[in-house]
């Protein structure tokens, strides 16, 4: 177990490092000039050159990379051009909002999609299942921008029971959560349905059925438990993706998470902020995947980490 953990942590560090190096190069190869984005349109060439020097962008790329690595190993991710504050701190200020939205969206998705998937599996190939399928796929097919604006129109304007934007109270969490959850519902419920259908047709279920176990118990105690590993994998992957920020939803709802921060950082070519966001979100995403992997033996004792199954 310890060797497995050490290997995974080593892999994770390498992944973060390679991701960061790729991002470092890509943002500098992309069109645009941070100095031009920072300075007013009336700035002269000399002004721009001074700003480039101030940002450390006047040296060769390899020198910039060397300085970046040196600072990285001392825990310094640079100063955001637009916020004039340590980039890491700016990202960490936004992370609680992103984590809150991700956790609540995954919680709502799980609470709705898992029972729905079980229900669909038990009623496979019926008109009701078809109806549920159509509804969830429709939800997934609608652009999140449109879903968000429609929810805002209904619940903030026509029936004004929820705030339209920002996160100043608990109620502000409802509409962004529902918008994100609607997108995940079809994916998770259909996955549960598929896994459950296989599990409910497995020999051990047939044996249990022959022993008089009720259909409800078959579904929840036998089928769902055996579907837990793929379900956890899917939820973990979705959760990790949400930690990178739900850009459109954050913009529509004025949600102060990392997604909207990244949009701004890209528009202003704020290299330190882009890099700090990548470090934080990539680390969190890898951590979530690691936790998911470690959770497999808890859900299925047949799984042994670090050994062939």
């Amino acid at each position, binding site marked *: 177990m310890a060797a497995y953990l050490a290997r995974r942590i080593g892999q994770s560090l390498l992944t973060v490092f390679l991701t960061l190096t790729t991002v470092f190069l890509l943002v500098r190869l992309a069109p645009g000039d941070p100095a031009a984005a920072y300075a007013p349109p009336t700035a002269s060439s000399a002004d721009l050159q001074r700003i480039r020097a101030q940002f450390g962008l006047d040296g060769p790329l390899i020198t910039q990379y060397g300085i970046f690595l040196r600072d990285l190993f001392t825990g310094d991710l640079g100063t955001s051009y*637009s916020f004039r504050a340590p980039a890491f701190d*700016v990202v960490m200020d936004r992370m609680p909002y992103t984590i809150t939205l991700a956790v609540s969206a995954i919680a709502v998705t799980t609470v709705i999609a898992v029972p729905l998937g079980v229900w669909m599996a038990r009623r496979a190939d019926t008109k009701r299942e078809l109806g549920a399928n159509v509804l969830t796929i429709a939800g997934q097919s609608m652009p999140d921008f449109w879903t968000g604006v429609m929810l805002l129109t209904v619940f903030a304007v026509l029936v004004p029971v929820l705030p339209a934007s920002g996160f100043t109270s608990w109620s502000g969490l409802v509409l962004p959560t529902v918008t994100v959850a609607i997108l995940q519902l079809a994916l998770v419920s259909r996955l549960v349905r598929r896994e459950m259908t296989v599990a409910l047709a497995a020999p051990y279920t047939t044996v249990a059925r022959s022993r008089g176990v009720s259909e409800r118990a078959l579904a929840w105690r036998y089928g769902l438990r055996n579907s837990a590993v793929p379900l956890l994998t899917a939820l973990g992957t979705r959760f990790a993706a949400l930690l990178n920020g739900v850009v459109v939803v954050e913009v529509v709802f004025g949600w*102060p998470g990392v997604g909207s921060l990244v949009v701004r950082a890209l528009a202003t070519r704020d290299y330190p902020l882009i890099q700090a966001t990548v470090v934080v979100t990539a680390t969190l995403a890898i951590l979530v995947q690691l936790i998911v992997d470690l959770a497999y033996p808890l859900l299925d004792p047949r799984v042994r980490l670090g050994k062939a199954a």
Partner: protein
Amino acid sequence: MTPTPQRALPESERLGRRTLLRGCALGAAGIALGPLSACAGPTGAPGPGTLTLGLNRSLVSLDNKLNQFDAAVTVQRAVRQALTRIGPGMRPEPILADRFEMTGPTAWTVRLRDGVRYSDGSPVTIEDVTTALEMYSKVNGSFLLGLFPELPAVEPVDERTFLLRTERPVPVLDRLMANIHITPAAANKPEELQSGVGSGPYRVVRADSGAGEYTLARNTRYWGPRPHLDTVRVRFVPEESSRVIALRSGELDVIDTITPDSAEQLTGLPGVTVQKTSGVRICQLFYNFRKGRGHPLADARVRHALTYAVDGESLVRDVLTDSAEQARGVVPLAIEGAVRTGSYTYDPRRAKSLLKSLGATDLRVRIIWESGEFAGDASVMEAVAGMLQDIGVRVRLQQFQPGGDILKWRQGRAGDWDVIGNGYPGTTGQALTSLQGMYGGTAEKERTRDTYMGYVVPRVQRQLSAAATEADARERDRQLAAVQHAIWDTWPSLWAFAPKTLLARRDRVHDLNLLRLNAYDLSTVRLEG
């Protein structure tokens, strides 16, 4: 046979797994609820004494050294003040000074208003003015420095009076000083200040610069009439449709810098009023003045002929939905010192015949612009391209993403182009500074590509320099009028328009006097109902 998992395991291990799983669930809930508890508080519609503004751009600080755009000015000046301000008539008015007058060609006498104190109780002093000028001068990339031909030196005369001296006459110094915000000297730095100590009608009680959200409360030490509002909340809502919805729901009281589409949506809705005023920004389809001598666009007659192809009236009516005015001068007529120099006429037949007579029959035009340069930019460009094609000009449109490489293109370092869609702000509300910024190019500046699209016309530049140092206001206005006519005759733009300033507010908001500079004085705003 597949074993049933729960029977294959010992009881203790099952309990351990469950405990762990429960622990994970509790942990996740903790992560979710932790930030929530920090953010819990009142929401929804603002209270009776609270005005909530929804800005379209994030206000990084309440200082303006690097960050002065439209509505930000409203908020920044509610906290920090300058010696003067540009008032409703687009004329400078004294604020922290009660006297600000030119007492010599290169000297202005200024007297600080008696008894003015900052929100922390300390008095406003001459040293604060000196330090403010010094700090602004040290900021890299400050757009304000570009407006000043030179920064004045401060010479104290007595405790409240001082001279502002320049080497050459700067007749619009009273206007320019409206942008220099005064802060206690000890707290001033050559960067944007994060603290909120100022002499304005409001003080900062909560600031989250990362999220662009601020809460201001009435400054009890304010020297002027008592502000009507108890609290002003500033929120950053980037998406326009969300801002419109939040205004309709009553969550926001004022949204500014709205597009014509949103203004149309909001017009006539109960509880909402849309305010419009002429704007000080000019949006131009500006020609590239770096064309070689033999190029058709280097000939002012060809540039003039092409203007006949553009149906400006229909662009304003159908594409810009009457949210703009066609330019009738080289700067918007809403700014002080602007004069009417001519107008754009739509006559495609004339365009065709003129081009034919000038031998410019096989013209190819590349039009470039950055997304978001003005509302409806892509639609305007597509319509203009269609109009040019109607007279036989082949057009290529090239759109750049914000923050992309358009600067290199503008400077002619990345590729050739013929017309650029560009907006130029009228920050000082005075024609002279806008004219100098756009048309004051010299051969020396052009060597570093620092002229406005390569516009270098020595005669115009000389006239502008003379006007800029003319101390007599009447003579300066006469010279400025002459130079505007001279510029118009060079046909710098294929077409130009001045977008109107648009703002939407709830009906409970009163006495919001929207200025042409797209700002308003928060101290006069009051709430009813």
